[in-house]
């Protein structure tokens, strides 16, 4: 095996991957809770204009992208708050405006499309030392706020009206979450690129919540999946690029996290099916004492038929029947 970590650029890339992999799913969990999964995508598109402005004015694209993304986030939040149910349309308007503005301004700046592509699809291996510091600092700030103010952000995401009557400043927390999302988008921009940013926020959450029953475990699990995906994707891409030319880390990271989803989803579907089947039946006396006829099968623990609690006994389910043991025979319940 070739030691890919022997290169300086790989060390820098690893650091960026670790921090973005951990921080992006935190913001993603709150966004999914509020059913705003596509907000990250909208902000990613808006940030394209920010990057282009940076290229045009010869300033750091990271900072112009952050500024424009935060502006976009505040705008989305204001539109969402004032409009009724028009949130998705507002997002769509920003999607298109952002990307069109970005491409237009890049052209005016005389930059080639490939320069913009670095930001659209990520270029983690060309990240500079200064960029690594910025990435780590911003990601750490997102983590500190996202976890530290967790109870408040969770309450607001869970039920805005209740949060308001609890005395929370709902508007401020909504804006805070929007700003966190904007910062995360620009932080992850170098890792997976603006067009795939949202994937690193949302897909780990989608994969984890197949198996979890609480918000907390979803949040922590998603951080784990995000970390493994971003570091794993980077390493896979690095090793594979010795064999095949043109394998870039951004898409590899996203596809790896989607693989996690592909693995957890069938398990989650099975778990949910099983849980639904085991919901106790209402405690109601049967209409009449109805016994089964000849019953060659002996029900019992691990007999292969689901045993569902029903009052003080269990019913065994098979072929649309609910069979309850009664002395030597089974009753039809």
């Amino acid at each position, binding site marked *: 095996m070739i030691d890919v970590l022997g290169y300086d650029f790989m060390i820098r890339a690893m650091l960026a991957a670790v921090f973005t992999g951990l921080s992006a799913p935190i913001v993603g*969990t709150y966004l*999914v*809770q*509020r*059913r705003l*999964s596509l907000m990250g995508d909208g902000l990613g598109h808006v940030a394209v204009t920010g990057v282009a402005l940076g290229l045009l004015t010869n300033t750091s694209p990271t900072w112009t992208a952050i500024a424009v993304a935060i502006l976009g986030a505040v705008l989305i939040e204001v*539109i969402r708050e*004032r*409009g*009724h*149910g*028009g949130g998705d*349309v*507002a997002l769509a*308007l920003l999607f298109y405006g952002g990307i069109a503005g970005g491409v237009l301004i890049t052209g005016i700046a005389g930059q080639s499309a490939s320069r913009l592509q670095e930001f659209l699809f990520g270029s983690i291996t060309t990240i500079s030392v200064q960029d690594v510091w910025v990435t780590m600092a911003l990601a750490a700030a997102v983590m500190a706020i996202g976890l*530290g*103010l967790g*109870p*408040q952000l*969770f*309450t607001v*995401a*869970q*039920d*805005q*009206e*209740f*949060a*308001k*009557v*609890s*005395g*929370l400043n709902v508007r401020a927390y909504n804006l805070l979450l929007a700003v966190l999302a904007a910062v995360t988008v620009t932080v992850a921009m170098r890792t997976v690129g603006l067009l795939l940013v949202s994937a690193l926020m949302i897909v780990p*959450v989608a994969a984890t*919540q197949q198996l*979890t*029953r*609480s*918000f*907390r475990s*979803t949040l922590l699990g998603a951080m784990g999946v995000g970390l493994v995906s971003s570091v794993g994707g980077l390493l896979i891409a690095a090793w594979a690029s010795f064999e095949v030319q043109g394998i870039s880390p951004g898409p590899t990271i996203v596809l790896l996290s989607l693989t996690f989803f592909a693995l957890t989803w069938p398990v989650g579907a099975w778990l949910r099916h099983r*849980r639904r089947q085991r*919901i106790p039946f209402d405690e109601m006396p049967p209409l009449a004492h109805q016994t089964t006829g000849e019953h060659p099968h002996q029900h019992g623990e691990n007999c292969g038929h689901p045993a569902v609690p029903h009052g003080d006994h269990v019913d065994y389910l098979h072929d649309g029947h609910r069979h309850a043991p009664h002395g030597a025979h089974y009753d039809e319940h």
Partner: protein
Amino acid sequence: MLTDVPVLSITDGTVPIAGRPVLRHVDLTVRPGEFVALMGANGSGKSTLMRSMTGLLPLSRGTVELFGTPLQRFRDWSRVGYVPQRSSAIGGVPTSVWEVVSTGRLSRRRPLRPLLARDRAAIREALEVVGLADRVRDGVSTLSGGQQQRALIARALAGEPELLLLDEPTAGVDLPNQRALADALVTLKGRGVTMVLVAHELGPLAPLVDRAVVMRDGQVAYDGPPLADHEVHGPFFGPGHHHHHDDPTGPPDHVPGVTSPVDSAAEEVLP
């Protein structure tokens, strides 16, 4: 005397929604320990009245006072427990019953502080009052509608409120769950908690009610001793079981939002 300060009072309360006065010149005072049922047909303004009492809907005229303090200056939100209509209970991420109920402690917790032993005790207590102590680790989405409603009540109780505001807690809840709910409210009444409840029909809650306030067309039509369900929906108080599916103030379903994503619902002028 201190106990004579009303828990809640609304004076000349007027609330417009989309330019239409939905609540008109409402006066209502709730004294400590009272159990008030806000009743009336759909669209009579009973839910609007409740939402204006919590500050969720701003008044265009008049004042609301909570514990003697005008709503604008009221900061003591831990004294108020609010149970909104159930629809808002489930988000996009799995959430356990414990997590939902623990958000009720937030009005008493400072930011960046962990859950203390007395917070946990209050949450556990609240879950016991509503009879969900054995479902703590389960996901909210696995609860039945009535159990979800009880979880929302537990959430409000976790903050140990002196005033409990319940918006249609019995709507769409089956009879056994309505009884469980009534049991929980009996316990609270015994502790001296003041309660205001919006209900279309009282059912098993009827014996608890000290005072009924019937709304009709945005005004208080009756304020006095409890009434039977059929009296509330009699001819005087307007249509009984009329459901406003054609409610003109609702969101315009068939109008694409493209033309006006920045219009606010409140400013919209109806044709």
